[in-house]
């Protein structure tokens, strides 16, 4: 059995686990964010091209208006 101090003063392992996992989960999210900091900027083919196409069409439509 782990000592009280190792378990942060909690006598119950499951409470210690919940408390520690909360902090570990936050650290995991930070690491995930850092690793993927620059990823995901490029969308799948067609995304921005489609947007540009839509915008061009919209401008053309506006220009055609009387």
């Amino acid at each position, binding site marked *: 059995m782990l000592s009280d101090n190792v378990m942060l*003063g909690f006598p*119950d392992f499951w409470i210690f686990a919940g*408390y520690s996992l*909360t902090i570990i989960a936050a650290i995991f999210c930070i690491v995930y*964010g850092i690793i993927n*900091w620059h990823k995901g900027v490029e969308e*799948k083919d067609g995304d921005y091209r489609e947007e540009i196409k839509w915008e061009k069409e919209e401008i053309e439509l506006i220009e055609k208006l009387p």
Partner: protein
Amino acid sequence: MFYLITFIVIYLAITVYLSYLGYRRTTTVSDYLLAGRQVHPVTMALSYGSTYVSTSAIIGFGGISALYGFSLSWLAFLNIMVGVWIAFAIFGKRTRKMGKALDAHTFPELLGRRYDSRFVQGFSGLVILLFMPVYSAAILIGIARFIEVYINIPFATALLGFLLINACYVIWGGLKGVLYTSAFQGIIIIAVMLVIGISTYSFSGGIINAHKALTELTLLVPPYLEEIGHRGFTSMPETGSSLWWFIITTMVMGVGIGVIGQPQLNVRFMTLKSDRELNRSIPFTAIFILLTSGIAFAVGALTNVVFYNKYAELSIQAVQGNIDKIIPLYIDRFYPQWFVAVFLVGLMAVAMSANSSQFHTLGTSLSRDIFEQALLKGKSVIETTVVTRIGIVFGIFATLIFGLILPESIIAIATAFFFSLCGATFIPSYLFALYWRGGTKTGAKASILCGFFISLLWMLFVHENESKAIGLCKFISGSDSLLGHPWKMIDPQVIALPVSFAVFFAVSFFTSPIKEEIIRKSFRHI
């Protein structure tokens, strides 16, 4: 009072300015509903966090942890792991891409367009419109309880006063206004919670000593709590006891998992420009949740040590049984008056942030999901923004009524109710919408209806928390619940969610698939 007025005036001035900024930059429907899909990751993180956490977590769940102890740290863990990482990385990325591909502006609209079903959109909107006010009321009660304790005015006056302030700026700025102010509100609450967390551990003698001191209070746990399975503030409740089922299924799973089906949070993923912004939001949101709900749960439990050291009584005794007053009373008794005023402003901030997002979601549910889709059969009209505002006003009134009629010690339970209902109703069709091309329109309808009605029936006739309060079960059968232990303690979501999943699968296998064209369009960017 001087501090309070000064801080509130400064706070409101900044909030009004940010709302005005949002208002000025809102020119299109997309701006109004989705903030133009160009939100900065830190703004997204702060606003998502402050909408997610709210007074419900700080006052309501803080109070619950003062009563039941550190077992709630499992909820803090799920808040981060499920509410942030799974929500963002597993659901958020595809939600953003699919939302864009389908030009969806609300969460029900995403489901409705993905399954090519006006019913899915209309019914989802109706569920939100009818039940979200219960959750909004829980948040409002949280802030009103604090104002009641601090300024010593009647609860109803506090409730009405705060709702009026909140209403003033929500109706105005659309999601851009909501996001700007939420981010500002998020910063305030982080600072306040950090101070409270550090000072509470310091009052209690440091991290390890505080936990040990709390363990020593096990002997003082009242007999009525021991009977239901309470084994001390630093131990899990007795496995299989009433309290264990309540903590695990309602408090931890109901809220921890139910967050995935929260419409006011899911719509935020569609406000980001690319996955990069989502990736960058994850660490900020996780830190935010850790510093707010994580600290609130720990502080809640430790209030027992602080109250005992000074008054030789537990927190629950100090508030004469009303759990929702524990955190307000603790702050009021143990902190200087200027800080209490700052804390109140911080609470106002998160309450306004969460409430405004909810009212905004209520408004869009009425306008886009119910009015345009269900009533006008998909016909788009230019009056959307006006109907949205009518929906917001309806939401505000419904919230006020629930706020006045709900009983004491209700904040955490009302929150868990809404999270659980949304979880069981929306999670299966939401998950399969993003990941399974084989799910059918009939499968989605059946799953949503099953999840919703099983949850509702379980609440009315089995789950004692609600069935006892509503009284319909007693009226019909003479008993508070139709089933005995442990069923009457098991949260509706635990029963309804697996059924809703199974129904989705089963019905999808036997019904005709969705048109290939819609599937192709939905997954265009994925």
